[in-house]
């Protein structure tokens, strides 16, 4: 293209007329300010570079350090987590989960057969044999130095054999519940009551295989009125096998611990219905 071919020599004038600058003055002022800011920024290239990245990610050396640090942290975190080291939080959660599982399984129990032993001074024991079934019927046999006695608990009513051995007397449940003679057995007369005690009274805080607990069982340790409470739980069924209460401070001075009460449980093994029928001879064990 040759300059001589241009028809109109006053091209600048033509362009000015065609592209007339009619921008409002305030917009023009704003554009000028923006342009000046941009120019100022371009004069300082380091500031533009910084604008494109987070400040602390600066140079390549810094990046390498950060990359190494992140890798080390990731590996350390995963290894620490997978090593399974128990923490306070995990321990609390574990304890809660054990308690909840035991409690739910106790509430689902169909039959309970438990023996309560209360050692007394002079080496004599009072023992109670508690039988319970899911419809709420229970039978308690007490054997002590004074003799043997049996009661049946049906619908919050106590039935017991009369002194003549042939008649049956009934009385409100409260009379026996408050009787200190029967008290040890009354705390374990139903699985629901046992679950409630475990949740509300024993404050069970520790678990783990210890001392007497075998491979298929674990110990849950708590406290009630300063007495140590130890429950051996079956690891398969999550139901208690043995519950023991020890005297306060016993065993601290390397001596034998004084067991105040020992309860042995058998769960969900069918119990003959005859045993729950009140009567002097019915279902005699």
């Amino acid at each position, binding site marked *: 293209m040759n300059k001589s071919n241009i028809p109109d020599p006053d091209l600048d004038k033509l362009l000015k007329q065609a592209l007339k600058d009619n921008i*409002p003055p*305030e917009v023009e002022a704003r554009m000028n*300010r*923006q342009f000046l800011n941009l120019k100022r*920024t371009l004069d300082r290239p380091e*500031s*533009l570079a*910084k*604008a*494109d*990245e*987070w*400040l602390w*990610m600066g140079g390549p050396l810094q*990046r390498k350090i950060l990359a190494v*640090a*992140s*890798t*080390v*942290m*990731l*590996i*350390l*975190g*995963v290894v*620490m*987590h997978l090593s*399974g*080291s128990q*923490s*306070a*939080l*995990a*321990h*609390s*959660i*574990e*304890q*809660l*989960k054990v308690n*909840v*599982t035991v*409690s739910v*399984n106790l509430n689902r129990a169909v039959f309970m057969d438990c023996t309560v032993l209360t050692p007394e001074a002079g080496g004599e024991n009072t023992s109670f044999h508690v039988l319970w079934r899911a419809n709420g019927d229970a039978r308690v046999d007490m054997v002590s130095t004074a003799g043997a006695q049996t009661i049946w608990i049906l619908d919050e009513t106590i039935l017991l054999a009369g002194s003549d051995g042939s008649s049956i007397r009934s009385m409100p449940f409260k009379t026996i519940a408050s009787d200190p003679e029967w008290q040890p057995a009354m705390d374990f007369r139903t699985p629901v009551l046992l*679950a409630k005690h*475990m*949740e*509300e009274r*024993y*404050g*069970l*805080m520790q678990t*783990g*295989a210890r001392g007497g607990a075998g491979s298929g069982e*674990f110990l849950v340790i*708590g*406290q009630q009125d300063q007495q140590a409470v130890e429950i051996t739980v079956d*690891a398969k*069924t*999550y139901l208690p096998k043995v519950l023991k209460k020890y005297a306060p401070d016993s065993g601290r001075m390397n001596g034998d611990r004084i067991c105040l009460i020992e309860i042995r449980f058998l769960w969900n093994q069918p119990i003959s219905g005859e045993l729950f029928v009140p009567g002097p001879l019915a279902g005699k064990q």
Partner: protein
Amino acid sequence: MSSTNSGKRFLLIAGKILILLIVAIGVLQSGTPAGYIDPYGFLFVLVGGVALLMISFPGAEIWRAFRHAARGSGSDAEIGNSVHFWESAGRSFWILGGLSSVLSIIIGFVGLRTVEVAGLSAIIPILIRPLLSIFYGSLLAVICFVPCWKLQGILQSRSSAPNPGRNEMPISIGRPRWRFGLVLGYVLFLAALVSTSQIQINLSDLWPVCKPSLFVVLGGALALMLFMGGNNIRLTPSAAFAGMGLIGSLMGFIQMLIGMTDPSPQGIGHVAGALAFVLFSCFTALLGMALIGAPLEDRAIRTRQACRPSAFSRVAWYVFPLLSLIFLVLVFNMIILPLPGPR
């Protein structure tokens, strides 16, 4: 004309007071107004939120934002900054609501070691406090979003009606310096965090618990940020923290399900460890977003490196605390769910 306007204003104020009264009566009539009070949770959310604002904004900008919220007059750029301030305030309270809820459930479980009651009756109150914390967070967030929306409306009305009189603030590109308010903000936030936790549990109990998840989330977030590229202006530490928090939580849930296949005490130990990992992953991610991610993004906006928060950051800020709450409920369910019976 002015008397009509003042009459309308009085009516508006009276209406607002009436609405507040109705809400207050509703709360009182619900039966247990004391049940809505958790002083530790509220103080942590409030003080922590103020501290986060001090970290992100200088005092002059905070004062200006309050002035704009009250009067609504100022240049477009100034009002734009105030809109950003109020959005950040709402976001901070919302994130802190989530953080406080995770913290209070952790404190609740760790504190159970010293409580006599150890059953379901002890667990229920532990879930109430996290819900209260998120309630306070969302309440304060909504209060902050009101001026944000109001100022946004003013900006929109101005852009539709050209006004030659208004002026623009010059763009400032520069390296932000350490301010006194920023240092004070961090100190205040950490003081609130430590004192809230220390009052209720021994912090030495907490440190060994959070180490694994802290390393995983922090290391992972750092790696993500490096991979995403330092030259990308849309690089969002908040999104990286949220992403790693999610990954950590998923790791925990997978481990928990594996642990649940083993109904022995060892299995329960695995389940408990996994649930602790989920809780601390959420906690670390939220803490990272609040202390590192959000202030960095705010600084980028204030220094005009970015014109608005990235969509990834917004998703991280508003969705992850909600996700944490869902995880808390899941963790809670997992604890009260008994293990499957013997095979």
